[in-house]
């Protein structure tokens, strides 16, 4: 491929129109039917839109905000904005007006392309504070008939105006299009901002195109792939998969009918390349398990024996390792009766490459999908890297690593354990925030991830253990990575949350929250009566089960030469569920460590002073804002800690 002229998204669009003009570029289900647009049709739509932007007076370097769910029109808007030299800024569509106002104000957006009345209302709500916002363009006019249209324009009208004035505006459009280079800004994406205000990450054409090219080669993506675009457009992953890679490879992006029909649409499209957060794969398994529990005896047997075989030989067959002829034959049968239908159920029949990322994924969960023959892999990335930092190559897939450095990426681990990277995808800067840019990216281009990890010597894979700020040391100097241990604990269905303590102490201890659904289900089946969460959490049999889980985790930690010190020696099951209303968790259900430590200081004290029970009283906030308190006496148990096995293995 002659990449000399492929310097921008419009250039890639032109190449796709030339080379595969009749090949589908977008699909969207509307009115119950999949509509499609070929690359030629897409080109015409984008051009009409870009001419409309020119007619509106969009100037080079201005920012065009895009707020809506995944629809072809919004992807076209991003490319059209770039075509006239403007910068597209996709925004999370479920943001409240305040959050949208912050982003619009920060980037000084002059134009916004939004989906419907809901989004228009948000912009109107904050309009007074945003003198720079000139025109809001909406896609769906439902309910907007009575609105003041002095600053509103419909998407269709904009395109129509563009088409009409083609004669006068065409020359200006080609001038602007030709002015684009690899250094032009391709897109600006706001980080979700869990710590502080969102930051605008500026990514150049070079970042996006180089990353798309090398990651496309890594997984041998071609123009025949199809993907379902359903993750937020403001997220960097969607931009890389549904814009970068789609334009580089020329494959088809399919958009669901609505957010609620995603699962049905997934089954209809059967994508060949798929990304989903671990939660998606978890939910699918829960669905399957619940349905199988209601199934007849024969089906249960078929499922049970099929899955036993799959667990044993499925991943090996997927990795092309040798398996006995008999097993291979049985797997073929299982594929016909069990695995095929299950893949179809999940909408993953045609998947050739699937990725998951974002959180730790349980080994059982991971093994389940791989044993069904789905090539599920992990990657590690962030907005500042144009997604890819590391990813797992085919046949080198494990639950506990995030893979080898992606093509073109260099990795280094700092003294503190923090992971640094440098790559062609490394962002240009944070918009209007040189201070943060300087503190994140050094002069040589190395970027700090904020994550602590290490590279496994035997395989060369990166393993992420925790956020750097949470990693500490035990008093004996051993590494303390609470999240790593908590994740291992949370993989058990009975454990909803875990909080591990130990920084600066002689040993690790843990608070546990049981999962009321899973444990309650178990109690029901075993005729154990309970009146509340508190009562069930204090049941001796429940404590036995949790203890067994913890000891299992301890045993697996003991084989880890870096983290064997993090074994949990004592634990208690909390008398209340950690709750965002009480400030113990964030709204996205992440534990706030320091608040928990402060609030339950008496319990932590008891975990370390050797007592076998502790009485406590805790204030709780009810959903309607009233306050009350819970009194409880909690049993503290010791868990077996295993000797370090890694040393023996080394001998």
């Amino acid at each position, binding site marked *: 491929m002659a990449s000399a002229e492929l310097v921008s998204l419009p250039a890639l669009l032109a190449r796709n129109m030339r080379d595969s003009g009749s090949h589908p570029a977008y699909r969207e289900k509307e*009115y119950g039917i999949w509509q499609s647009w070929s690359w030629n049709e897409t080109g015409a739509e984008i051009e009409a839109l870009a001419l409309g932007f020119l007619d509106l007076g969009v100037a080079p370097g201005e920012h065009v905000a895009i707020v809506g769910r995944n629809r072809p029109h919004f992807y076209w808007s991003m490319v059209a904005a770039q075509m006239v030299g403007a910068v597209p800024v996709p925004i999370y569509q479920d943001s409240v007006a305040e959050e949208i106002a912050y982003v619009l104000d920060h980037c000084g957006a002059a134009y916004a392309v939004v989906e419907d009345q809901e989004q228009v209302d948000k912009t109107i709500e904050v309009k007074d504070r945003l003198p720079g916002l000139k025109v809001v363009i909406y896609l769906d006019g*439902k*309910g907007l008939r*009575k609105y003041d249209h002095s600053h509103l324009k419909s998407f269709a009208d904009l395109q129509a105006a563009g088409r009409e004035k083609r004669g006068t505006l065409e020359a200006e459009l080609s001038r602007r299009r030709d002015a684009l280079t690899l250094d032009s800004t391709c897109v600006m994406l706001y980080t979700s901002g869990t710590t502080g205000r969102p930051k605008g990450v500026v990514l150049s054409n070079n970042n996006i195109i180089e990353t798309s090219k090398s990651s496309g080669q890594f997984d041998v993506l071609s123009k025949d792939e199809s993907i379902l675009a359903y993750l937020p457009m403001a997220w960097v992953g969607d931009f890389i998969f549904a814009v970068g890679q789609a334009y580089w490879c020329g494959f088809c992006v399919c958009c669901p009918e609505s957010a609620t*029909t995603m699962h*049905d649409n997934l089954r209809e499209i059967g994508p060949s390349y798929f990304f989903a957060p671990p939660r998606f794969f978890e939910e699918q398994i829960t669905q399957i398990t619940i349905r199988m529990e209601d199934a007849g005896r024969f089906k249960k047997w078929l499922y049970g024996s099929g899955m036993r075989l799959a667990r044993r030989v499925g991943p090996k067959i997927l990795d092309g390792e040798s398996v006995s002829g008999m097993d291979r034959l049985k797997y073929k049968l299982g594929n016909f009766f069990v695995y095929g239908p299950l893949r179809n159920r999940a909408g993953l029949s045609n998947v050739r490459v699937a990725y998951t990322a974002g959180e730790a994924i349980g080994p059982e969960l991971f093994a389940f999908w791989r044993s069904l023959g789905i090539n599920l892999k992990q990657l590690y990335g962030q907005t500042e890297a144009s997604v890819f930092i590391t990813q797992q190559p085919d046949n080198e897939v494990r639950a506990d690593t995030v893979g080898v450095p992606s093509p073109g990426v260099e990795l280094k681990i700092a003294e503190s354990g923090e992971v640094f990277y440098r790559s062609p995808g490394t962002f240009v800067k944070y918009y209007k925030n040189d201070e943060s840019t300087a503190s994140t990216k050094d002069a040589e281009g190395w970027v700090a991830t904020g994550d602590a990890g290490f590279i496994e010597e035997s395989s060369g894979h990166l393993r992420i253990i925790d956020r750097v700020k949470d990693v500490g040391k035990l008093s004996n100097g051993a590494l303390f990575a609470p999240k790593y241990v908590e994740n291992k604990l949370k993989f058990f269905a009975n454990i909803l949350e875990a909080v591990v303590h130990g920084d600066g102490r002689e040993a690790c201890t843990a608070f546990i929250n049981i999962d009321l659904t899973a444990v309650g289900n178990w109690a029901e089946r075993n005729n154990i009566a309970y009146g509340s969460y508190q009562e069930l959490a204090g049941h001796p049999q429940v404590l036995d089960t949790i203890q067994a889980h913890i000891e299992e985790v301890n045993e697996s930690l003991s084989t880890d030469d870096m983290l064997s010190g993090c074994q949990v020696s004592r634990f208690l099951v909390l008398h209340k569920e950690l709750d965002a209303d009480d400030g113990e968790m964030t709204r996205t259900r992440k534990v706030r460590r320091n608040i928990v430590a402060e609030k339950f200081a008496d319990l932590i004290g008891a975990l370390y002073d050797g007592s076998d029970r502790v009485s406590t009283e805790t204030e709780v906030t009810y959903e309607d804002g009233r306050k009350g308190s819970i009194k409880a006496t909690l049993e503290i148990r010791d868990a077996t800690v295993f000797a370090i096995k890694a040393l023996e293995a080394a001998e």
Partner: protein
Amino acid sequence: MNSMAGNYTTSDGREIGGVMMEMKNITLRFGGVVAIKDISFDIHEGEIRAIIGPNGAGKSSMLNVISGFYNPQEGEVWFNGKKRPSMKPYHVARQGIARTFQNIALFEGMSVLDNIMTGRLTHMKTGMLAQALWRGPAEREEVQNREVVEKIIDFLEIQHIRKTPVGRLPYGLKKRVELARALAAEPKLLLLDEPMAGMNVEEKEDMSRYILDTNDEFGTTIALIEHDMGVVMDLSDRVVVMDYGQKIGDGTPDQVRNNQAVIDAYLGVAHD
């Protein structure tokens, strides 16, 4: 408290047309029980008209008179400038009047899509045999009707339950499907019998939005019965208040709110 005659403009600037339906001195009896006693009011084209009143006031009976389900013993119903003879509900439906029910009346075993398609019945011209063979005009007709139905599904945002049997849906969604079926008839006048009964706040907000959007988007005239006063006062342009089969108030929400007879009926004054 006479109803306003002729065209008028609402507080939010909508142009309301002339009289579409006029009820003149309606009296409805069931044996010796008088359900409606000498009531007159009108419904203008394009407006949202509410009928309110305490339990047993005769609201649903009134709606049933409009929909042709009951024929009043006395009085006249005028629709589009013509006096309406006593007729069957399906004749009324053909005149462009559709309704939803207080107790949901959908086909539980059929899918949402099929339920809404039944709303297109008055628009189908081909016979049963032709439809069964599904050739030529029957096929074209079905495709056209399906398109109308799909637009309504999109309008009410129920794509995700298109193929789900109605019996499996929660209450709030069933109400929405019922509205969809009524809209599928492309009615000139839409009758809603307690569209928000039994709904939570969020569902009520959604339903209110759909009612307003229907009026706005398709210009449909809407007559509704509702108990939730907040909803009625926010949605409707004009309100008829009934108590014990009689009309005790008629006017804009503000006029009705300040009407002593209405206040008494709602706060409960001893009836002699």
